[in-house]
């Protein structure tokens, strides 16, 4: 049962060690290549110790915890904060306690007893050790099933594929993010908890803690304006203003545990996760080869990366400010196609505006035009579709939807005209009817007078 901090550290770097010391019921896996090398008495003891630590967790949480009791009394906030914050930690809610990560004996009454290395006390892990420290449990599928069967167990492995992980592992760079940099420590909440640092609406702020600091990023030679740019983007607007948590934040494009900048070759796949149709059209367009040949990032060349603004029609065309003229010039095929596509889209917009204008006018006059207004949505849909189809760079494809869209818009316009005509007809009809009605009333009045005069005489 002897497992001091140093003993743990000596074996820490071995990945199979941490992943096989979780549960006594977990039998040796014959197919695992490193299994036999660890089938020693020491490792059995270690596994047994860890299994005891985890299996007794639920009851331990309800039992006395001298760690919490003492640390809460400490004046040094660095030492009391873990005990305070742990109250909101998801691990605590699942029945785990200090000793489940740090070892030791929470039932002991003295500091020495509680932190006895003979009772597996590990203390505070070094930055280099943190991924493996968390991975002890989080990389163990059998163990994690007991707490959350749907939770992934590849975070640690994925972490080492990230820029953070690589720098940590390969260069011993401790300024990089590890588990606790993003998830916090001793107050770790589920990502679905709005107070969690990795809740979708909080992710950008969490990443920005380091990535928005020019000083912190200087040694790594990477910019620090991503967060500022992202906050101006259509995606940030969706998350922060529209409260749409499905909109992408940092980890949706860069990955979370495996965080890395997407390369030129894969950026289209990243955007294509959500913008599938645009990505598909782009793959079939003449731009695909041209971008590949020039090593241009597929989506970001036109839309940028972090400061992705809401696309608008001025981005396409041949006028000043259009993106197409950055590469195309008058006389080439692309220039002509860009001009045509823009013209067709403008025509459709004008058609929709004309129709909705006259329909709104009719509606303000009290006419029932909800049906043609609803049908006009067909033209708006066609416009949206046409704006997507420009990613094919094919004027014929754009024409296929603009044409029917214009027909729908024209139908709406005719309905508006008919409504206004009907409105005029009603007014004129009312005037004629009122003349007739008043005349009739007057006739009855004359008759009444005639009768009453006769009655008097």
């Amino acid at each position: 049962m002897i497992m001091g901090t140093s003993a743990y550290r000596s074996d820490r770097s071995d990945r199979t060690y941490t992943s096989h010391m979780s549960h006594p019921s977990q039998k040796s896996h014959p197919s695992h290549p490193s299994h036999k090398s660890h089938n020693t008495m020491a490792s059995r003891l270690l596994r047994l110790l860890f299994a005891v630590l985890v299996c007794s967790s639920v009851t331990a949480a309800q039992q006395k915890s001298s760690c919490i009791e003492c640390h809460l009394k400490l004046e040094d906030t660095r030492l009391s904060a873990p005990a305070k914050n742990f109250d909101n930690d998801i691990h605590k809610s699942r029945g785990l306690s200090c000793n489940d990560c740090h070892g030791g004996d929470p039932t002991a009454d003295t500091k020495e007893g509680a932190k006895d290395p003979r009772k597996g006390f590990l203390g505070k892990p070094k930055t280099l050790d943190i991924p493996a420290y968390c991975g002890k449990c989080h990389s163990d599928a059998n163990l994690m099933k007991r707490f959350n069967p749907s939770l992934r167990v590849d975070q640690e492995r994925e972490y080492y594929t990230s820029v953070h992980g690589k720098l940590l592992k390969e260069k011993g760079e401790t300024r990089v993010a590890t588990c606790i940099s993003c998830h916090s420590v001793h107050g770790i909440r589920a990502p679905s908890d709005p107070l969690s640092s990795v809740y979708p609406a909080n992710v950008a702020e969490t990443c920005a803690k380091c990535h928005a600091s020019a000083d912190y990023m200087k040694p790594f030679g990477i910019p620090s304006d991503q967060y500022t740019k992202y906050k101006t983007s259509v995606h940030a607007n969706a998350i922060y203003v529209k409260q749409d948590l499905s909109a992408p934040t940092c980890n949706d494009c860069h990955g979370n545990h495996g965080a890395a900048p997407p390369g030129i070759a894969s950026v289209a796949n990243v955007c294509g996760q959500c913008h599938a149709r645009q990505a598909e059209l782009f793959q079939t367009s003449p731009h695909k080869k041209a971008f590949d040949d020039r090593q241009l990032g597929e989506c970001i060349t036109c839309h940028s990366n972090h400061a992705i603004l809401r696309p608008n029609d001025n981005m396409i065309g041949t006028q000043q400010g259009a993106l197409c003229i950055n590469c195309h010039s008058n006389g080439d095929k692309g220039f002509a196609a860009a001009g045509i596509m823009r013209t067709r889209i403008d025509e459709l917009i004008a058609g929709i505006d004309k129709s909705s204008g006259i329909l709104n006018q009719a509606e303000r006059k009290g006419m029932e035009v909800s049906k043609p207004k609803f049908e006009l949505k067909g033209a708006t849909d066609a416009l949206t579709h046409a704006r997507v189809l420009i990613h094919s760079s094919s004027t014929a494809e754009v024409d296929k939807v603009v044409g029917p869209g214009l027909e729908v818009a024209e139908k709406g316009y005719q309905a508006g005209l008919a409504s206004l005509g009907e409105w005029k007809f009603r007014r004129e009809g009312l005037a004629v009817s009122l003349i007739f009605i008043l005349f009739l009333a007057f006739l009855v009045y004359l008759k009444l007078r005639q009768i009453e005069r006769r009655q008097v005489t």
Partner: protein
Amino acid sequence: MTIEPLKDWLDERLSISTLQAMAAKKEVPLHRHSIWYYFGGMTLFLFAVQVATGILLLLYYRPSSENAFESVQFIITEVKFGWLIRSIHSWSANLMIATLFIHLFSVFFLRAYYPPREITWLSGAVLLFIIICFGFSGYLLPWNKLAFFATKVGTEIAGVVPIVGRPVLRFLRGGDDVTGATLTRFFGFHVAVLPAMATVFIGIHVLLVQLHGMHVPRKYEHNYQRMKFFPNFILRDLIGWILAIGVLAALAALFPWELGEKADPFAPAPAGIKPEWYFLFMFQTLKWIPAKILGMDGEVLGIMTFNAIALLLFLVPFIDRDPENRRRHLIFNVCGVVALLYIVVMTIVGYVAK
């Protein structure tokens, strides 16, 4: 060619000459307040407009949650003059309730319920509730958003009444919620149950008016002239009715009744939802009433008070039956004025309030 043989033939079978003799004898008192006599006839005329336009709407209306909105939309956009019929039906309903209230208060203040006219008053009070039920049930039929939520709120208020509230709510809704079943049910009430009841009570009411004649206020009992009902009074009525048609046509053409958006039971209730104007004074009262009054639920107390006032309305001719009792006369006048002011003020407040 003469029509005399035909007249004789009809007279022999229908006793037209007897009716003519009765009509010739029938007279209407003429005094300072004779103008109020016309409102009963006007209400009856507007009811006839409702029946006529309602029958025309029935030709196209489909009473189901899937089709009701679309069928009304079809009526007002595709059917020739469908918009006119639908708008007249809606405007006429509102004008009818307005003339009905005027008729009610004029009868109240002129004491036209004194013996032997108690049953005339009672049948009129029943007709008031029948007409209000017509309005409540008809409001839902286009199955639009406002009507849906107004019905939801309205039936919820009925459900608050102790003991009977819950069964009444379930009966009205045809279940726990306002659904297509409620629409079908309301349609049944609107086009079958209520018209049958209205026909019976209008028959009784008009018959009793003919039987007892027009009531003359005490002040003019010995000092009034007479006007022949036929043709003098009826021709005046006719002028009013013709003008009413003009007003209805103008309202329908200048302010066509809106259809709004189709009801969506899963959508949140729109902000500032209000019932029809004739329920506004009650709605506003229930909005303002404190949550607790003397330990009792304020809303329940409010609803029970309105029920008590409704009951009191029926009992008016049995409480105030002595024309000589001046003190009671005064109390009734004050109550009537207060009630009228309360209804007017709370309706305006309810209309203006957000």
